[in-house]
C-alpha cells in the first residue's frame, strides 16, 4: 500500500455544492478528470482561510464520493465537520468560490479480487469514504455489511443512496438518539463470526480503530483501517504524521500516515506505541 501517490496534483477548484447534513457539510468540488484517479480511502489537502489567513497548513479530508455530471464535469464530495477555524471556514464557502486543493493523496482501500465478506465500520464522518467503497465492493460481488456509530444522531452520516449499496446497516449512538444505544464496537466480534467476515474496513477516530484491531487480533480477519493523524503537509515531506508500524521482519518503524496511509493494515500498527517514543 505504501508510497507516494503518483497521481497527486494541485489545482484551483470550484465549490459546486455545499449542503448542511446533520452536523456536517456535504461539499461538492469540481476537479475535472482527476476524479478518475480518486479511489476510496484517498484524501485531499485544502488551503484554508483565504489570502490573508494566519493558517499556514492545509487541512486533510477524506474523499467521500466521486461523481461526473454534464454540469460540473468530474467532482468529489467531502463530508466536513466544522471543528476548528479551518474546517469552519471551508463549511462557510459558497458555491462558485475557489479553493486550492491537492488530490488525490495517500493510499486507498485494498479491493479484494474475489468475492469476500466485508464489514465496513465508520465512526462519525468516518463513514464518508465507506459508501463509495461499498459500491466498489458490491461490484466485485462482495457481501457488504455496515456499522455506523457516533456520540449522537446528528453525527451519523448515512445518505439514502449510500444505504442501497449495503446488505445491512446498523447504527449505534452513545446517547441513543438514533439507532441502537451503545458503542459501535460492541457487536463486531459477534458479527464477524456470524457473517463469516473476511475483511473489516474501518474509518473513524483512532480509539475506535484501535478497539477494532484489538477485537480482530485473535482472528485472521484482515483489518484495513483509514487512520487520522495530525498532518502538516499531507505529501510526505514533514514527518509529523507518523505511526509505529511493524514490517514483515517484525521491525517497528515510524511510517508517514499521509503516504504510507491513511489506509493501513490495522494488525501492523502498534497501537500501544502510538504517542510513545520509539527506540530503534
Amino acid at each position: 500500500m505504501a508510497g507516494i501517490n503518483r497521481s497527486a496534483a494541485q489545482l484551483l477548484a470550484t465549490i459546486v455544492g455545499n449542503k448542511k447534513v446533520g452536523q456536517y457539510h456535504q461539499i461538492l468540488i469540481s476537479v475535472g478528470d482527476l476524479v478518475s484517479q480518486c479511489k476510496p480511502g484517498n484524501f485531499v489537502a485544502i488551503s484554508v482561510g483565504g489570502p490573508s489567513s494566519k493558517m499556514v497548513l492545509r487541512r486533510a479530508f477524506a474523499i467521500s464520493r466521486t461523481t461526473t455530471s454534464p454540469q460540473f464535469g468530474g467532482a468529489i464530495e467531502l463530508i466536513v465537520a466544522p471543528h476548528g477555524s479551518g474546517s469552519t471556514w471551508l463549511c462557510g464557502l459558497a458555491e462558485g468560490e475557489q479553493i486550492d486543493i491537492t488530490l488525490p493523496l495517500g493510499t486507498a482501500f485494498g479491493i479484494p479480487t474475489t468475492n469476500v465478506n466485508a464489514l465496513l465500520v465508520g465512526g462519525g464522518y468516518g463513514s464518508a469514504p465507506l459508501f463509495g467503497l461499498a459500491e466498489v465492493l458490491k461490484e466485485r460481488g462482495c457481501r457488504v455489511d455496515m456499522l455506523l456509530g457516533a456520540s449522537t444522531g446528528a453525527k451519523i452520516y448515512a445518505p439514502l443512496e449510500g444505504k442501497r449499496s449495503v446488505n445491512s446497516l446498523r447504527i449505534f449512538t452513545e446517547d441513543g438518539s438514533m439507532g441502537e444505544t451503545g458503542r459501535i464496537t460492541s457487536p463486531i466480534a459477534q458479527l464477524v463470526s456470524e457473517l463469516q467476515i473476511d475483511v473489516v474496513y474501518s474509518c473513524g477516530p483512532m480509539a475506535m480503530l484501535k478497539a477494532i484491531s484489538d477485537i480482530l487480533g485473535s482472528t485472521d480477519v484482515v483489518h484495513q483501517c483509514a487512520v487520522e493523524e495530525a498532518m502538516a503537509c499531507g505529501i510526505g515531506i514533514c514527518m509529523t504524521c507518523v505511526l509505529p508500524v511493524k514490517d514483515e521482519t517484525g521491525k517497528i518503524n515510524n511510517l508517514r500516515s499521509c503516504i504510507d496511509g491513511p489506509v493501513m493494515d490495522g494488525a501492523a500498527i502498534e497501537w500501544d506505541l502510538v504517542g510513545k517514543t520509539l527506540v530503534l
Partner: protein
Amino acid sequence: MSQLDFSTTLGNAWFPTPIFTASGCASSGKELAQFFDLRDMGAIVTKSIMTKPRAGRATPRMAETPSGMLNSIGLQGPGIDAFLANDLTWLVEQKARIIVSIAGETAEEFASLARRLRGVAGISALEVNISCPNVENRGMVFACHLESAQTVIEGVRRTIGGDLPIIAKLSPDVTDIVSIARGVIDAGADGLALINTVLGMVINPNTMRPHLGGRTGGLSGPAIRPIAVRAIYQVHEALPKVPILGMGGVSSGADAFELILAGASGVSVGTASFGNPTAIMKIQNELRQILTDKGFSSLREAVGFAHRPESSVR
C-alpha cells in the same frame, strides 16, 4: 527578464538560482519531485542525517500556531548508510544539486558523518545542523554555546578537507548570534545558515498539558520572519563577506527578496512547502520578477542591499 543573472554561490559552490529547500522540509526530495523538477531550483537541502537510523520523537509532532507552526520531529531518519545508498543515489540520478545536512549528538559524530561524505560525488555543500531544538537533550544544541559550536565545526573542517563548503546552521535562541557566527567562521565554516526554528510551546486546551509529544518544539513559518531578517541583517553587517543561506517564514518572492536585501545569498523554503507543494517554484518565479522590476541585473547586486546608505539608490 532575459538579462538577469539569477545564479548564486555559497563558498565555492555555484547554483543557478538562489532558492533551496530547507532541511527537514523536503524529506529526501522524491516527494516534491512529483510536483516540479528538482533541477529547476537552486538545490535540495536534505533533512539532517545522523549516523544511525532514528525514530524521532513521540507524536503529536506538530501544532499550528498563528502564521506558523511548531514541530518536534526529533530528526527521524534512516541513518547515513541507508541515506547514501538510497536517498543520495536517487538525488544524484535526478541530477539535482544537493546540500547534505548532517546532525550529531557529539562533535565526534559530526566529524564521522563528514568523513562518510568526503569524496562522495554529487554533493555541492554540507550544512552542519548544530541548532536543532528538537532533541531529547536540549544541552545538545551546540549552536547555543560558542565553544561547542566551534568544536563541531573544527572537527568537520578537519575531516572534510578544503573543498566542500561547510555551512553552519545557527539557532536564533541565543543572546548574541553575531558572536556565535564569528566563532564558527573562525573555526572553519565557509558560510552560515540562518535561522533554525525558535524554541516554542503550545499547551493543548483539552488535556491542559503541552501539546507536543516532545513538549517543546521549533517555531517556523511567517511568524518568525522578522526574527530571521534581523539575524541575517546583524550577521551580514558584522561579517559582510560570509555567504548566508537565509530561511525563516519565506512564502513569497517578496519574502525571499527581504532576506536577500538583509544579506542572504540564498534562501531556503521550509514551512511554506507544507502549505503549498509548489511554493518553491512560485517563490522563485516571483523573486526573479521582483529583481527584474527593481532593475537589478544580478541577484548578487541585491545581496545585503539594505545595508547600503540611503543615498545609494539604484
